[in-house]
């Protein structure tokens, strides 16, 4: 019996790309379906993620899994080659901690630094610098968050590794710069040059053009969601 694996995603979403990176690292074949989030969510998406109506959603043999971090752990538990999370429970707890820190603190702060205006933007910028500094401290001495190879936290940090550079260029702000964050910037370069990662990141110029053109639509869409 063939295995049926489908990913509902969006080409420009870091959350969606995380899942693709994980599947590619595991060497798992899947069918990809691009969603139109702004105008026309598919019936399939609404059926498979009725609670949040968001991407990414991974559908494995007809059963859906939503929330990118949950999906990543599911992938790791289902396909055991090339583990993403460490085996030791304590190391796993640390990895999960940093993944949560990235999603709850870093991503919203960087996003608002670039997409907001006025005092909200200023406050977000201060926070972004603080959070990235914490992240840099965690990375010191290691090639990747996962050690010698890309792991769970590195994949979750894709927003920092790729999207941050694009967003700050579009917004004309300086957040992730080499003078402030030499370790993080070096990591971002290594991250982007990893063969599996490289093939699974949206092209920089396409992403930049998209954010520039769609800035207003995106800001309105994500108001109160990030």
């Amino acid at each position, binding site marked *: 019996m063939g295995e049926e694996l489908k990913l509902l995603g969006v080409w420009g979403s870091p959350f969606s790309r995380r899942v693709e990176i994980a599947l590619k690292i595991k060497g798992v074949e899947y069918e990809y379906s691009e969603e139109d989030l702004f105008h026309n969510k598919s019936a399939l998406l609404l059926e498979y993620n009725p609670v949040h109506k968001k991407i990414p959603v991974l559908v494995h043999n007809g059963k859906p899994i939503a929330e990118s971090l*949950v999906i990543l752990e599911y992938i790791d538990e289902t396909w055991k080659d090339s583990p993403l999370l460490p085996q030791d429970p304590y190391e796993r707890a640390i990895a999960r901690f940093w993944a*949560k820190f990235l999603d709850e603190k870093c991503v919203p702060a960087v996003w608002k630094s670039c997409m907001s205006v006025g005092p909200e933007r200023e406050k977000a910028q201060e926070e972004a610098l603080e959070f990235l500094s914490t992240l840099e401290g965690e990375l010191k001495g290691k090639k990747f968050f996962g050690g010698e190879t890309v792991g769970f936290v590195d994949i979750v940090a894709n927003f920092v590794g790729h999207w941050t550079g694009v967003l700050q260029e579009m917004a004309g702000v300086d957040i992730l710069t080499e003078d402030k964050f030499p370790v993080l910037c070096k990591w971002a370069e290594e991250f982007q040059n990893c063969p599996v990662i490289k093939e699974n990141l949206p092209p920089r110029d396409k992403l930049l053009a998209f954010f520039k053109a769609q800035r207003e639509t995106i800001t309105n869409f994500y108001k109160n969601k990030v």
Partner: protein
Amino acid sequence: MAEEVILLDFWPSLFGMRARIALREKGVEFDMREEDLSNKSPLLLKMNPVHKKIPVLIHNGKPVCESLIMVQYIDETWGPESPLLPSDPHERARAKFWADYVDKKIYPALRTIVGEAKEAAKNEYIECLKVLEGELGDKAYFGGERFGYVDVSLIPFYSWFYTLETLANFSIREECPKLVAWAKRCLQRESVAKSLPDQYKLYDFILSSRRRISLNK
């Protein structure tokens, strides 16, 4: 070698309750240390330098932070014969999804009710509880027959029911009878009964905190 398990906690904390329940479910002896959040201990600041928050689980000197991460750590470290998470990857993913829902939806709604007690906040809270009630269905627990991860993540919120009902003037039993029945079922477990504070004591505490906060403005 003796094991040292310390929980830095604060008795009304929903998140602390989760850790207490999980440890007790596994029969782990632990030293629960009450923190004064207006005067955080050097140990807390050292063990959770990033967030400086409770709860913090310190196992043989090593800290684990964030309640759901803690519950998973507890599940993976102790009592493999009584797992909180199911073994099937899809069921595990489902449990993690719903615990995440509690954090993303129920907790913020609760905070808004306590902060403003407005109609909109109450309605959001009820709506989210109803989604959870829908997921529970006619099962004894969220995972089926066994008390598990999602139950641990949500049951602490029961201790806040009286506070919310009184502040926002509504009856959770009327809105979500199955959920209240589930809560009573969970409370029959020693681990839960020991880990949740008395609802009325909590209400008094919230009232006096609010008074203190508004006096300090």
